[in-house]
């Protein structure tokens, strides 16, 4: 049960949110794209091991979408930020090395 910081409501349980995958993938002008570029927009989202900027929506609360840095290995939560604002820097990748290694085993 992740504890997710909604920028509007504060910390809430994960079950109040829906997930929106990688943040920052804007809707392209569909008519300027080749089929494979369009397919990339439709289907490909980042899936890294480590810090990922991703989208969440507080559907059972304020209903607002926001972005969040989260570590996909340690489940650490980084800064949240609003859409159309500057993305904060990724948190330090080495902040929790022993747990990162733990997950590798």
């Amino acid at each position, binding site marked *: *049960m*992740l*504890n997710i910081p909604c920028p509007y409501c504060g910390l809430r*349980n994960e079950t109040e949110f*829906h997930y*929106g995958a990688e943040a920052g993938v*804007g*809707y392209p002008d*569909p*008519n300027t*794209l080749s*089929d494979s570029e*369009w*397919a990339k*927009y*439709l289907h490909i989202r980042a899936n890294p091991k480590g810090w990922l900027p991703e*989208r969440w*929506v507080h*559907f059972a609360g304020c*209903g*607002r*979408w926001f972005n969040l840095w989260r570590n996909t290995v*340690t*489940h650490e*939560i980084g800064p949240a930020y609003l*859409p*159309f604002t500057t993305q904060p820097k990724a948190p330090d990748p080495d902040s929790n090395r*022993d*747990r990162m*290694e*733990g*997950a590798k*085993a």
Partner: protein
Amino acid sequence: MSEISFSFDDKLYKGIEGEPMAAALLRSGLLSMTNSIYHDRPRGVIGLGVEEPNAIVQLVSGTKESMLPATVIEVVEGLAACSLTGVGALPQMPDESRYDKTNCFVDTLVIGAGVAGLSAAENELRAGREVLLIDDQSGPGGHLRHLGLEIPASLFDVLHHKNLTYKSRCTAIGLYDQNYVVAIERRTDHLGEAAPASRARIRVWHIRADRVVLAPGAFQRPLIFANNDRPGIMLSHAAATYVAIHRVKIFRKAVVVTVDNQGYRDAVRLHREGVAVQCICDVREEAGGPGVDAAKAAGIPIHFRTTCVDTTGGEEGVLKTVILQNLDTKKNFQIDADLLAVSGGWTPIVDLATHIGIKPKWSEENAAFVVKHSTEKLVTAGMLAGDFGGDDDPAIFFGPELNKEQSLRAYIDLQRDTTLHDLRRAVGAGLSSIEHVKRYTTIGTAHDQGKTSGMLTIGALCQLGNISPGDVGTLSFRPPYVPVPFAALAGRERGLLTDPIRITSLHQWHVEAGAVFEDVGQWKRPWYFPKPGESMEEAVRRECIAAREGVAVMDASTLGKIDIQGADAAVFLDRIYTNMFSTLPEGQCRYGLMCKADGIVFDDGVTTRLGKNHFLMTTTTGGAARVLAWLEEWLQTEWPELKVYCTSVTEHISTIALVGPKSRQLLGELVTDIDLSKEAFPFMHTRMGTIDGIPVRIARISFSGELAFEINVEWSYARYIWERLWSLGIPYNLTAYGTETMHVLRAEKGYIIVGQDTDGTQTPHDLNMSWIVSKKKEFIGKRSFQLPYLKSSGRAQLVGLLTANYEEVIPEGAYITIQNAGADAQGKIPHIGFVTSSYFSPALDRSFALALVADGLGRMGEQIEIPLGKKSLRATICESVFIDKENIRRDS
């Protein structure tokens, strides 16, 4: 302390209320409590708590929980239990106990109420934090309880601090991300029949804490030697506690085998209780400290560099002789004893820490894996953090060298009957990872989850490979820390509370009218309204005829309704729907189709323009939440410049569909301020009016192809309006209909249901709805229509089917082949599509269907087959509109 009686394996025993069942049984002389699972060896209790691998029982009184260690069951009058060989049974009778859950937010959660936990709690309180202290025992003190010692006065005050809540019998079962802890509190079993019926048997705690202090303590571990499983062989700390605290007076002669000073302390306790301790065998070369001095003072003989290699048994396999060996000379000697107390060192309880991926580190000093963790959020304390409190000075030793014969009876996992021999075979088979060894031998997979055997496995692997435990690494521990009944985790979300039920404001009327309901998402919708003695078929036929020939009414309130307002509402809808909405005049309605970006139909419904900047969108019943989320996602994350506001009003507005040639006449009796005439109020128009002064919005919308009116009214007025219709409807033979009739009527007209006539792979073109796809504007999904496969030939297209046999209804979901299609070489019959909707139509007096057929629109008139195992149905492909193609009835 009151004496009670309880039964075990149908025999009566005396005990002291609240003491562990294992203690009471031991005191009665019951050493051999069960037989082992595969080897059928007699086994007795070896431990003090949840680490117990042998004395596993099933409760036959109370709730009859399937499997519990006798070391944690508190005896109470009337308790009954029976032994298990490692396999539990599930009683058939319903579990009448209550289970509940609670949520808790706290500054600091301290897990473990031993000295370490209490001290940590004291620090937290001093820092001004609120503390929740949980512990799995019936009272605080941890090891002090086993030693019969009082909690120091200073720490005792901690328990009564106003900012501290203490929960006994409350076991943390899992540590999750961001300091989320799940714990189970056993609240009634220890009260027996005196437990109030209203009290939940187990409460599941969901705790979120700013700080978590882990002070769970440690388990003593056994040693690996031949025949180390006999009743009478116990962990030394457990043996001393049973003898000294629980007055178990059945042992006369004891041998203590140890790797640390704990063995000495336990030997002294046994000695003081009158057990003749024959000797202490210590693998170390020397030992010193208060415990050792006390043992020496008590005159207990001490053999250094000596340990146990084997035992012999007497009656029923109970311990008789201990065979000891000098580790240097390899010379054996034996001593008769009825108790062999083993101290193999301590294993801190690392489970919770490992749940969130923390890796324990091997500590030579402690001869154990420890977790020294101290961050702002998570702190370990006490034995887990390597603080063994003094002078244990343990040797790293897990057992003497054993030959093959000995290894066959040298047990590592007592509950799984896994031996050193099994482990050697695993290594011999080429397995190097401890996880492979675990899986090959099944060590650590029983009810105790390897609480004592895990470290022995690591130790044995070290001895085999001549490596350090730190190189082997620990086994992974997974929640829950102790087994938890399914019922506890299900809590009160049982029966009708498993999932919320959504009902309309007319629901009670439907119930009273005898409706049969179907589940649509979380909604209960009337499926059909059978009259007494009527079959579903008969009811649906009657309802259909009423709608086509007279007047019928249905509750359409479950349709999703989204109120969309704002200066850019029309622009927004143009982007969402495949067709144009900005051109829709105020006061009019339009059917719309929406696709996902991949071009696949996602939802549909009628949207009404209530004002220049005000629309009311309807969605499918099941799709309402999805669609609203979809709209919000685009507005918030792609088009924030659009001034549009979406609000779910599904449960604000009830919708009553009045359908049939006589609907205008009936409605006219009720609504006097709207001109309902064909000319004044055309199809797909909407009008505001009143019924008995109640504001209503009437719309000429038809999902049946009949003349129809939708009455939209504020939710709480719906029942009144509905009753008024019925009071006027008798001369019209007004008929209520449900979703089944709705399906028949709409299918006769060729109207699709998204999710039934689509399966997540259809474009609007596939549904023969190219007319709804705007060429003039951009909308979500449009680009995808240009992808090669989405514009290729051979795609499944929506068509109608006319059956050869008018009486026979093709089963929905059945597949369609060309005529006389045979099986191919692989025995497969190639198909060309499948039936999506299929009914008997009273209006057509025949069966008919809708289907998705490859290139179906180019196959009009083609005869096809529907193979159904032994028989096969025939039908002809036709257009998907079966009734009133000219829309004369609809627009009348």
